[in-house]
């Protein structure tokens, strides 16, 4: 709960009217950042490695104690490997085309909806907890698809 309050106080106001005082800070010791490695695992999204919270081992995606299928679903949070940026997985996929592609059929087959389009770009959205990683892999294999990338919304975007 305290963390929730801190998140709220740090990130939901336009300008902080108050922040920890110098006196409060002076009572604290400084922990080197190297000592703060949290338990996370890697997941590759759009060709870039991110970090994801380790899930409980009873997760359905775990086929054995050694093999886990990478998974990424709407609503998850991932971090950049340097730890400095956190992202929400919005469930949307940005598809860039170089010609005609039957995205309607593809979307129907994969439980996606076409949300928007602009020039060569189409935005598809997963409405459920579909694993987005294999969906994007399939899209990338279609002829005339230049790229298909999973949308990651920077959690740091807020009121100014």
């Amino acid at each position: 709960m305290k963390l929730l309050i801190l998140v709220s106080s740090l990130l939901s106001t336009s300008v902080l009217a108050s922040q920890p005082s110098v006196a409060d800070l002076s009572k604290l010791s400084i922990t080197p950042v190297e000592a703060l490695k949290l338990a996370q695992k890697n997941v590759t999204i759009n060709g870039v490695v991110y970090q994801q919270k380790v899930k409980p081992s009873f997760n359905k995606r775990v086929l054995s104690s050694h093999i886990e299928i990478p998974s990424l679903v709407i609503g998850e949070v991932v971090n950049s490997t340097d730890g400095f940026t956190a992202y929400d997985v919005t469930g949307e996929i940005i598809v860039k085309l170089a010609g005609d592609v039957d995205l309607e059929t593809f979307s129907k087959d994969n439980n996606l909806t076409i949300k928007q389009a602009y020039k060569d770009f189409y935005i598809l959205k997963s409405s459920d907890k579909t694993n987005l990683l294999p969906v994007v892999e399939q899209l990338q294999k279609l002829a005339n698809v230049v790229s298909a990338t999973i949308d990651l919304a920077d959690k740091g975007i807020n009121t100014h």
Partner: protein
Amino acid sequence: MAFKKTLLATTIALCSATAFADITDSTFVLAAGDPLTPQQWHLQNTGQTGFSLSSGIAGNDLDIDFAHLMGIKGRGVTVSVIDTGVEIAHPDLVANVVPGSVNLGDGTDSPTDTHGHGTSVAGLIAATEGNGIGGRGVAPLANLIGFNFLSNQTVSAWFVSHGLSEDFRQLDRFTDPRVFNQSYGSTPATPQKLDYVANPFAEVQNLVMQDITENSHWGRGAVYVKSAGNSFGSYNAYYQGMPILVLPYENREFFNNNGLPFHSSNISADNNNYWNLVVSATNAEGKLSSYSSVGSSVFLTAPGGEFGQNAPAMVTVDLMGCDSGSNVAGPHSNALHGGSELDPNCDYTGTMNGTSSAAPNTSGAIATVMSANHALDARTVRHLLATTARKTDADNAGVALSFEDTTGEVVSYDAVPAWQTNAAGYNFHHFYGLGAVDVDAAVYKALFTGISLPEQQITPWQTTTADVEIPDASLVGAQSVISNESELTVESVQVKLNIDHSRLRDLSIELISPAGTRSILMSARTGFLGGNEGGYTDAVMLNTHFYGEQAKGDWTIKVLDTDKGASYTLGYNQQVGLIGFNSRNNEIAGVLKDWSIRIFGH
């Protein structure tokens, strides 16, 4: 009667050949009809308190009195509020709300605002005038639409809220936005790489914004206004998913950054995007608001105020009722709050602030200028605001940074210069861009001068390899030159950098134009927590300070290391405590590897 006399005086003055300075420098009384307007110092600063404990200094405002006297108040121009939503039923907004708002969560036309931020922003732009309640907006006759984008941050929601309608039609109706207000943003802890392959959203954002800026409204276009940020002294970030407050630490002093900005408006991709008009914030004394982010991407500055407690903030609309928004029941050091006599239902606030306020004040100003002459294209409106911006905080001395260089000698570096004048005669400052918005002066030019800028050109990126070492803690720095052949008049310049360095907070980056104008692209002691791929990798920076200069000739970049490891960057989290970043000096000297430049001009 007093109003008629002033109107007559104005009309007579208009007939005079020397009317410009007289009219725009004069102060005309704002029309009555809104009980809180006398405390809205950003509209007309008479030295009032804005319900806070201290007063401002008269004259430090948007200068709107001539425009309002002439009835030029934004009529026929729609402003889009892309924010936490807008309480469109608010009695001081409802008359100006037009169709087009979208709730990006449920698809309805009611952009629910449970936070209040977007509603206050909307009030600054276009709260209704003369209705006997509250205050008024900068453009009180402008139209408003709103989007609750901040609670629905998807690509498709970005498209819809930033002008790409779901039915793919052209933006060409009076109720379609010509101004997009974005009082939001991020404070990245590392430089951002421009990479359209890995990040096609950045590519499509750029395409959409360019398209709507240039082609909407039958080619007259639109303006995207963007807040610079509120991170002058510290900023919010995440570390491993955990929220932290990032702050400077030097000479065993918390929050000590030697007077230099700790975050820059030139880091986030939104704020170094040419298609955004970025604004910093000033307070009621005409000085930089204590929190305002700054940087060379700032185009203009506008009122944002302080916190409304010890010093004035904005007086604007709040969510209705004493149980929601900023103004709630109970004691508060802002005299408007808590169910006061002037606002018993807590429908207004006196504590709205931030570059979140500077942006809508600028959006309202733009709507006002557009409404003075609807034929003007968006770029010309930007130009009018640039040419009429005034020096604020004229005596600001900038920041001289003293540091011990590698030989042990204490040296002084002009880290943030005082106001300068570029070769085209434009004043500029790292804090204020080209200066403070002056609505009356811009409106006057819109009314009475024929301005048409030649077609805009954007040069391709021109790149050079440098591979120059950056000496540690030295004024010598690394230098590299690009000779530009394009014969353009500069509107903005973008630079893309590749630098290896393990402590970016040590670096100051300067750009010097062919005319010899020196501008700081990134000030020393900017509080990065790390680099991207070992330093700056394809990091873009925008510079507005060479406005009007000639682009042809040698552009010089200079990178200096100003610290041999005396300063830290700290992260604070209530549960973890203090986290130390950048605690060791770079063991090897940095390298300016290569850089690129492109010119936006005509």
